[in-house]
């Protein structure tokens, strides 16, 4: 080949190889690969802190909503592409335990955390809990002359037609939690009636449970269904929004972590579970989430929100059935 052309290809190949060299971590550093349903802005802070604590690099999944994460895990089973799940629905943790997706780990650090927050055999550990709530843009409500919704039933009021944004329960854990809450509060028959009326008011279904908070904060919609910290975080940033815990009460989910079978970095995974259960870890997470599970450590919410006695097992046992009914009713 002529010299010029040879040089051209030489430079190209050398450049490609050098990019690979820069960005591929050396074999020696161990990497912990995690799937997570946590928000992008949370993970950008959590991961570096955890990296310091466990002394390893953490690679986390692209942003996934809870059901998206779970679909991926199911599709991959039993050959998972991550070492562990750091943050997923407790209902899914129960299903996964029964299906044999996880490796047990009885962390000594977790010994003094109440039994209700962890699996007796150590298949999953719950490190914080969060709840579904309603978010409203005060400015927009005033402008459109709408009342502030106070309850789940208020959301079915026809005045809100086209003003509500809610996550899609097919993908979002927040939405499924809300749907389960409505089912458990009103009973299944009445629950469907409530959802039927709510659906008439919903202008858009989003993929994730955090998106409605952002959209309501930006004034795209007046009212949204979202989750606690997605709302309160934006209240603190100065958006004209308000978080409302529906007067009938709301459901909470225990955010869980579990080690996936075939985990390539067991040491790292166990260290992460230890850290999450420790005082330091819980205090750190408590700066981001409403409640953490280690007694004596405060989360961001000091008051006791009106939580129903939510049955996560029911959610794990009925998700597919409820969702296929949902599709038949609302996706005509």
């Amino acid at each position, binding site marked *: 080949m002529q010299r*010029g052309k040879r040089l051209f290809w030489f430079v190209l190949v050398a450049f490609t190889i050098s990019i690979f060299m820069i960005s591929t971590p050396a074999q020696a550093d161990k990497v912990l690969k995690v799937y997570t349903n946590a928000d992008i802005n949370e993970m950008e802070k959590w991961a570096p802190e955890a990296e310091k604590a466990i002394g390893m690099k953490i690679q986390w999944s692209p942003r996934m909503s809870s059901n998206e994460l779970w679909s991926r895990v199911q599709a991959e089973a039993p050959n998972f592409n991550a070492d562990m799940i750091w943050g997923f629905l407790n209902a899914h943790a129960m*299903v996964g335990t029964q299906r044999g997706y996880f490796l047990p780990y009885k962390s000594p650090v977790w010994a003094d955390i109440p039994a209700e927050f962890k699996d007796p055999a150590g298949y999953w550990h719950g490190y914080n809990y969060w709840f579904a709530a309603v978010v409203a843009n005060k400015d927009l409500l005033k402008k459109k002359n709408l009342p502030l919704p106070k309850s789940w039933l208020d959301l079915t009021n026809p005045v809100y037609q086209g003003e509500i944004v809610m996550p899609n329960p097919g993908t979002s854990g927040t939405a499924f939690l809300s749907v389960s809450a409505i089912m458990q509060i009103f009973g299944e028959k009445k629950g469907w009636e409530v959802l039927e009326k709510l659906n008439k008011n919903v202008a858009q279904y989003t993929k994730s449970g955090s998106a409605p908070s*952002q959209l309501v904060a930006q004034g795209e919609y007046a009212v949204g269904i979202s989750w606690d910290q997605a709302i309160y975080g934006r209240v603190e940033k100065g958006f004209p929004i308000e978080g409302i815990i529906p007067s009938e009460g709301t459901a909470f989910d225990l955010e869980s972590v579990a080690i996936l079978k075939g985990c390539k970095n067991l040491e790292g995974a166990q260290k992460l579970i230890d850290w999450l259960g420790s005082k330091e870890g819980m205090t750190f997470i408590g700066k981001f989430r409403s409640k953490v599970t280690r007694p004596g450590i405060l989360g961001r919410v000091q008051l006791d929100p009106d939580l129903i006695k939510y049955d996560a097992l029911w959610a794990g046992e009925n998700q597919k*059935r409820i969702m296929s009914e949902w599709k038949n009713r609302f996706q005509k």
Partner: protein
Amino acid sequence: MSLSLQNSFLHELASDTRHFLRRPGLAALTSVAVILILLFIVFPVGSVLLKSFTVTYPTVTVRCQSKVSNRADFKELVTGPILGAIRSIEGVEETRELTDEESSVVVVRFRRDWDDLRGLNDIKRAVQKLQGTFALSVENIKYELGQETIKSLATYGRFFSKSYYYRALKNSIVLAIVTTTIVVFVAFCFAYLGLHGPGFIKAPLRVLGLLPLIAPPFIFALSLILIGGRMGILTRLLHLPFNLYGWPGVITAQMITFLPLGYLLIENVLRSIGSHLDEAASDMGASGVDILFKVTIPLSAPGILKAALLVFIMSIADFGNPMLIGGGVSFLATDAYFLWISENNLEMAAVFCVFLVLPSLIMFVIHQYILKGREYTTIGGKPQQVEERRISPKIFYPMMAVAIPVALMIITCFGMILIGAFTKILMIDNSFTLEHFQSTNGLRSLLTSLKFAFGAALIAPIFGVTLSYILVRKRIPLKRVVEFMALLGFAVPGTVMGIGYILFFNSPPLKLTGTFIILIINEAARNLSVSLEAGVAKLHQIDIAIEEAAIDMGASSFRTFTRVVLPLISSALAAGFVYTFMVGMIAVSAVIFLITPGNNLASLYILAVAEEGFLGMACAISVMLIAVVMICLGGLKLLAHYTKTTIF
């Protein structure tokens, strides 16, 4: 007649094969190529097809160990009552009994959309109730959750019985038809004005017709949201009662996204029509309008049709635009993805893929095999210099009325991205900020994208051009079949290649999902055809006599290839490289199925943050992505200039 035809075909095949087998080097090289094509293109697509003919049910298996030796007794005392109790449980579809010497096994199959955890717990409760009656004869009971996959057409049945499934097919086809019509119309105006229009308009239109090429394919959806979304600038300023989410948004975004494709192809055709025909018609008294409709359009019809077919394929396969601005309207490519992520329903996703592939494949076959070589050649040899001729105002003004708004829209879209990137929250807090650029994960994903795009850009041309050499210069059996298989990766929409890969590469020994290399391979496989076609085109230009001369002088086949052919087709390699790099930087649809922790790409990160409502950050990463692409292309151009290599 047909018999003799068949005979001659078989005869040819046999002689090709004999010829082929006598050359071990060629045979080995070809076999490797074919195996790679099968493995990374044909089998994954095939596994999607297979998947669409199955249904998976959740199952619970109950194993009881017997204490009694008598099997008949055991059946009467244990298995019988268990089966009876299980059959009345809600959601049970079928029970099967497999009893052997020591234990009794009952497999319970539940409804497809039933939760296995509930089935398991219901069975446990039912068996517990019975436990008192057969406590003596059972040692321990074990429960297992499982799945059962059955061959069935039921998924197709469900597709056609539920409007929320088949509507996606209808919508996708309507969208493709509308987009194609608009794109062809607009692209024709751009191309015509770019060639025959007055000087001041030519250059800007040429640039704007191609500008959308360098942008991630969903960037226009993003800026349209900023302009005409619920909180968009126009929506707010003019208090519009409607917004662009849904059909209008998707169609507009697609029109801009696919304009360059239409423009390039149509411009090429218009350029090749010699001006002497226009002149002749004009001399004979035809008006400008007459010439346009009776000479130009008929002559360029095959080229326009070709452009239309390609735009149709692209529109149906488009992922990013419907995803961002679709506003809940269902389309095949995105709904297949949602079926996977929201309910892990890969069977229905596979059926969606089948309907996604069919129109694309039909269009592709028409394009590749029926229209090939159908252009009307008006002269032989080089394209002619188009002479300045005054364009008739009856053509000029209507065309300007189409082209100017679109051109302005393209400029506005790029401008909006730039404004959005530096503004806190557009229309809420319009202060200047750089915070959107400070996303560590966004920067990391840019680096991953570079790695990904360069990796794919090295593999695709090397493989594609080598294959083109085998196909053009060598006698191998079933040449057309090999060629078709290689082109399949391009013809099949990205969603299908993505789902195919997760189906085919998820279990040992071919467990490749989760690795970075699978992303690169996927991208290379999808873009192989461009390098292949570039190689084929170049080889047709090179006289075979040169190679024959080398061989006559004693060079081996290998030496001829590396020393004679390779330098000559280096430009095809380079073109393949540049193309694969560019589309790699903005890839979305297939790779979205394959990214795992640590492998996130910038284009997908933009999509993710945009979906979360962080439009500013999405704009900022888009700006960085476009900048990186331009820097790389500039670098390549410089390098090529310095080394005197042709790359475009």
